[in-house]
């Protein structure tokens, strides 16, 4: 099963190679990886999608924690989370296919962000299934290029019973 691990690291040179080296050196898998700075620019967040049984995932989390440049590791699979991925898909369109391409984009609520007489570039955001689905539908038209961000994810905020919700007090 895919596991999504969110890792807060120091935002400095060499950190990516330490994380990547940990995975390659110990024979762990990286399915996808995305990195960007956090609100605090001295830190970055990596979202790593990996696979393995419980023992392997436990080792991955522990080994990541052991890296000195790693500040925090969260195995998102331990609770509810939401995930998204964005893909940019450049589709070949013959004149007779152009309407079909737009229809498909429309079904998925994707948007066309670039257009030439022979291509559309479609932007789509969603979970992995959604992205796989639109790729499948567009493939017969001819996909010229495909760029995917890899998944990013964030834990869902736990729902508290209504009684515990902070009361809204109208401002005077």
């Amino acid at each position, binding site marked *: 099963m895919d596991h999504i691990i969110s890792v807060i*690291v*120091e935002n400095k040179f*060499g950190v990516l*190679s*330490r994380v990547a*080296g940990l995975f390659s*050196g110990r024979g762990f898998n990286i399915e996808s990886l995305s990195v960007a700075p956090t609100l605090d620019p001295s830190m970055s967040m990596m979202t790593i999608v990996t696979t393995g049984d419980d*023992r392997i995932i*436990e*080792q991955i989390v*522990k*080994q990541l*924690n*052991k*890296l*000195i*440049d*790693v*500040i925090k590791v969260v195995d998102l699979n331990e609770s509810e989370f939401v995930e998204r991925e964005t893909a940019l898909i450049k589709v070949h369109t013959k004149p007779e296919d152009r309407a079909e391409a737009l229809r498909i984009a429309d079904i998925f609520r994707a948007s066309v962000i670039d257009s030439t007489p022979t291509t559309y570039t479609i932007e789509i955001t969603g979970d992995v299934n959604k992205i796989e689905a639109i790729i499948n539908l567009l493939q017969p038209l001819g996909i010229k290029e495909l760029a995917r961000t890899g998944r990013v994810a964030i834990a869902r905020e736990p729902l508290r019973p209504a009684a515990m919700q902070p009361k809204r007090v109208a401002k005077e």
Partner: protein
Amino acid sequence: MKLTGAEIFLECLKREGVKTLFALPGGVVLKIFDILHQQKDVNVVLTRHEQGAGHMAEGYAKATGKAGVCLVTSGPGMTNVITALADAYMDSVPLVCFSGQVPTSLIGNDAFQEADNIGLSRPCTKYNFLVKDVNDLAVTIKEAFYVATTGRPGPVLVDIPKDVSMNKADFKYPGSVSIRGYNPTYDGNKWQIKQAAEAIMKARKPILYVGGGVIFSGASEELLELAELTHIPVDMTLMALGAFPGEHPLSMGMLGMHGTYWANMAMHHSDLVIAVGARFDDRVTGKVSEFCPHAKVIHIDIDPTSIRKNVNVDIPIVGDCKSVLRELTQILRATVNGDQKDLRKPWLEQIREWQRSHPLAYEQDPNGAIKPQHLIKRVFELTKDRDPIVATDVGQHQMWSAQYFKLAKPNRWLTSGGLGTMGFGFPAAMGAQAAFPDKLVLCIAGDGSFQMNTQELATAVVSKLPVKVFIVNNRFHGMVRQWQDLFYEGRYASSYLDATPDFIKLAEAYGAVGLRASKVSEVDDVIREAIAVDKPVLVDVPVYQYENCYPMIPAGGCNHEMILTDPPELKKKQPAGSKVAGEDKDTVLTA
């Protein structure tokens, strides 16, 4: 006042209390050596190869418990020290290695003697730093020592470009540093420790399985207290020898592939394994699926990744061995009553029975050749009053030394465990001697291993490090030959070492003392003679060449299925006699 990077480097070493630096110069570190040349606070030991510098720093660290420090140049200097870094990483040795680097403006340009030191050392160091600005140098060095010596210790590399050592900055040494991503856990979880205490009280056949972590944590006293209080026998890993007094009735000696029969049997039959600062290495577990089939496992370790890496653990305790053992003993002391001893009686009796039925044994050669075990046993017996530090290389002689040296105290045993680095012993012994000039420091080496760092004889002579090296000379890579005997039908592919030098002449060529024992009757005398000399001594002892090291658990075998002696078909093939292969080629077996 502003100081140059090189001067800051020296000041930092002084603040860290570094007395000895193992080093070899080169172009980009000349400024640093120039400063070192003009001072007397830090003793610079010039080695003949950077690998030697690294291992000496390791020996220094293992003997003192403090960080060992070495300094090498860029490019080949760095690549040469990698073996020592990898060795230190595997065995958790606190080491700070400084490497020179080409000037920052040239980094990445494939400059002369440039190597990607950070990239090269990343997988074999606990952490590494590239110092790009002289203003960061002091705090980086402070952080390097902090990381190397805290938590699970390990090697740290500090890469210093040439311009950084020459540029000037204000010197201010931080009193302490903190790194937000690095917070080792020292105190064990109290509830878990309580669970462990309860498990110990219930257990009928418990065994303490202790590793090198006990030594680095300085927990020997706490271990002794716990074992004596609860009457639990102690199995030691190769790295832990000395952590528990070797001649104590509860000491089982070493366990694992070449461990004692009773240590391995006790492990296999126990109902509670209490692992302390050990990491369930494959040389200890054998076949993991059949490892300790009846036992609950308590694992105390400062490194969370060690826990449940190889075997399942019932009660994990992340923390420093010393504090966890102390707390555990406190709980047990408050609850244990006298009949704990009676409860253990059948178990200890069973172990005594194993000891009686399968003692460590070897037969003297009918033709008078010296048996390697005899030599090693006599070295131990004739030196133990002087509480020596003993280093070993890697191979058969290392395992025999581990079996026969029943060390009484920690930090006396210098060996390469995890990486199994041949050539480790001699420089490591020198490192320890540099730390303790008045102590007797021994090195048990193989002829193959010794030749991997022979050049350091010059260092031993020039730097007045009077280590006593005993070469267990069988003109073979003995352990390789043993495996070839047992698993490759005796085909000695590249294990025979032709043209082994005359070690007496070799020693004398460097200005050291060379001695030799050729007969069993000469062994004691040569040992006494060697330890009486105040100079580096190389003692060549040609031994029976085909001796194999037992007990042995074949790789991937189960812990209670030990090979205890040469199989009969092998015995027939071995030439009896004292002939040394090489003098008479016929004695070399070729299948």
